[in-house]
């Protein structure tokens, strides 16, 4: 199936140059997203999923960070070739981002209304004051904030966590971006509020035909919102598949491990299966497959060589176990 790609990331490498050495946070990552679809990126802390999003937004602080290779094609144009001013136009207008912490990403000294108006006035200078205000109120209504006229003049500290996250979403959507990047948007929220926000994001995809990239460590969240899933480990993509494939038949040992170590709500088990050890730190990265030291199926070859990402039908997996099965 061929779909029009809204965003195409090819061989992206984002490295951080620190005193202790080079940290390869994102190492040769490629993927694409289509309108009306959600790509879920999942992995444990430090696997490079947030840095991938920041790289797309060109928000990597330099130094120490640098995008050293690759291309990020948005509607066919390479974002890495854009200058500061062009990038500023794209951010907010075309691509918007929702951050993890609704507590810290709003400015405490401005009202909710002022913060929404700020992005509208920058990206839609043709609107006059009254129109901009109407649009901001419409945004607040759209994200289901009760009494938007009242909230408009309130400060972030007067709102609960779930409300603040809604305001963040309202700001992100105020200029109708067609690509929405979400960095753990519900991690700081309670489950009942999380359910509300996820519903909102799913609605957006349907109504506004936006493409969404959802970064999270929570496989449960992924299973509810994603169409495609990309699993990352130590800066590399280890598996890529549709959401049905990944949960019905996970291929990479790391994906299997991740799925199995979540306590189940429906099954009763005495002991949880675990992935032994922990994610290697960047200065003790193994020579071969980064997951080999924790993998129960690792062979001598895994310890010495890094496997390539191989195509199996429409899926991709980075593991020697599936070599030669690419004809399926």
């Amino acid at each position, binding site marked *: 199936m061929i779909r029009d790609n809204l965003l195409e990331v090819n061989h992206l490498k984002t490295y951080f140059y620190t005193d202790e050495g080079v940290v390869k946070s994102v190492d040769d990552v490629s993927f694409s997203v289509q309108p009306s679809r959600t790509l879920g990126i999942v992995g444990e802390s430090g696997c490079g999923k947030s840095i991938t999003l920041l790289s797309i937004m060109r928000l990597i602080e330099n130094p120490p960070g640098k995008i050293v290779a690759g291309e990020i094609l948005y509607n066919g144009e390479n974002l890495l070739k854009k200058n500061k001013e062009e990038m500023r136009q794209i951010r907010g207008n075309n691509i918007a981002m929702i951050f993890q912490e609704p507590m810290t990403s709003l400015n405490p000294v401005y009202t909710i209304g002022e913060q929404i108006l700020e992005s509208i006035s920058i990206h839609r200078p043709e609107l006059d004051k009254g129109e901009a205000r109407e649009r901001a109120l419409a945004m607040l209504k759209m994200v289901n904030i009760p009494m938007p006229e009242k909230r408009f003049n309130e400060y972030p500290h007067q709102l609960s966590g779930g409300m603040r996250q809604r305001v963040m979403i309202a700001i992100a959507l105020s200029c109708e971006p067609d690509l929405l990047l979400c960095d753990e948007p519900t991690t700081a929220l309670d489950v*009942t509020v999380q359910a509300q926000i996820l519903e909102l994001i799913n609605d957006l995809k349907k109504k506004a035909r936006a493409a969404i990239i959802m970064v999270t460590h929570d*496989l*449960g969240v992924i299973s509810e919102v994603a169409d495609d899933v990309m699993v990352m480990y130590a800066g590399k993509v280890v598996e890529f598949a549709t959401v049905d494939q990944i949960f019905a038949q996970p291929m990479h040992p790391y994906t299997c491990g991740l799925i199995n170590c979540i306590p189940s*709500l*429906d099954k009763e088990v005495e002991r949880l299966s675990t992935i032994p050890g922990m994610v290697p730190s960047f200065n003790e990265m193994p020579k071969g497959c980064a997951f080999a030291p924790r993998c129960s199926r690792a062979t001598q070859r895994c310890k010495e060589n890094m496997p390539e990402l191989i195509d199996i039908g429409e899926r991709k997996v980075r593991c020697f176990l599936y070599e030669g099965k690419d004809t399926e």
Partner: protein
Amino acid sequence: MENEKHLLEVHNLTKWFPVRNSIFSRQQNYVKAVNGVSFSVKYGETLGVVGESGCGKSTMGRTLLRLLEATDGAVYFKGENILTLSKKKMKEKRKDMQIIFQDPYASLDPRMTVGDIISEPLDIQTSIGRKERTEKVLAAIEMSGLNPKFVNRYPHEFSGGQRQRIGIARAIISRPQLIVCDEPVSALDVSIQAQGINLLKDLQHSLNMTYIFISHDLSVIKHISDRVLVMYLGNLVEISPKQDLFTNSAHPYTRALLSAIPSIERRGTKDKIVLQGDLPSPLNLPSGCCFHTRCFMAKEICSQKKPELQQVGKEHLCACHFC
């Protein structure tokens, strides 16, 4: 009061924090964090406590151990009300009741070595000699799955998972009968979280301990608990043996909570109950049933009369007018 089967009996436990609107205001307001909660814990079981942030579950855990002084109520630990004990007597009791904290980064003193941190609970037992102390520390370290070589290192040298093991070693060194686990694995990655949960289960088995396990994560609670207590805005809304709660929950809040969990196995199920609105402020509790402002089943009576806990099954209690 005494019941041989119960290690802990809690009666009408209440914790209100006074707040004042301004320094000139005479009117005293209270944040009603825990509101008349009663339950009991059997020897050797794990009682899971679940609820959303701000529901008072951590405050309750701390009040049980007198890390916070209760406003009202009684806590019988092996038949003795510990809330009325003198400070000195309470100190002696502390070796039987310990706590594991949520944040593995903030709960360890960065200037103390791992050995000092773990051995600190032994300070109150002055009868222990130096040699015995070292032995105990090493035993606790080993039981928590840490390398004994780490004894002289400092907390910053460890990862989150290892730090949580240090916190666990500190909690078990005095061989307590009761441990309050306050979100012990919530800050950890899933693969590390599973290791932590298995460790806690193993230790409970080998040391014969009773857990009060506080978490917001229902799937973790389901895995580790024997019985589950659900809290909402400082009130106990439902308490039940695990199986019954998850298959046959009586309170609408519990049902909403269960259906809100994103779960791989229940993917694509459409009959989700999505609650509207946010948690009301504990400064200003709703009248009647505290849940009626968000409840999808609320009727007139709910805003007028506070529902009592009533029996709906074996050991299964629920506070709802319609259960």
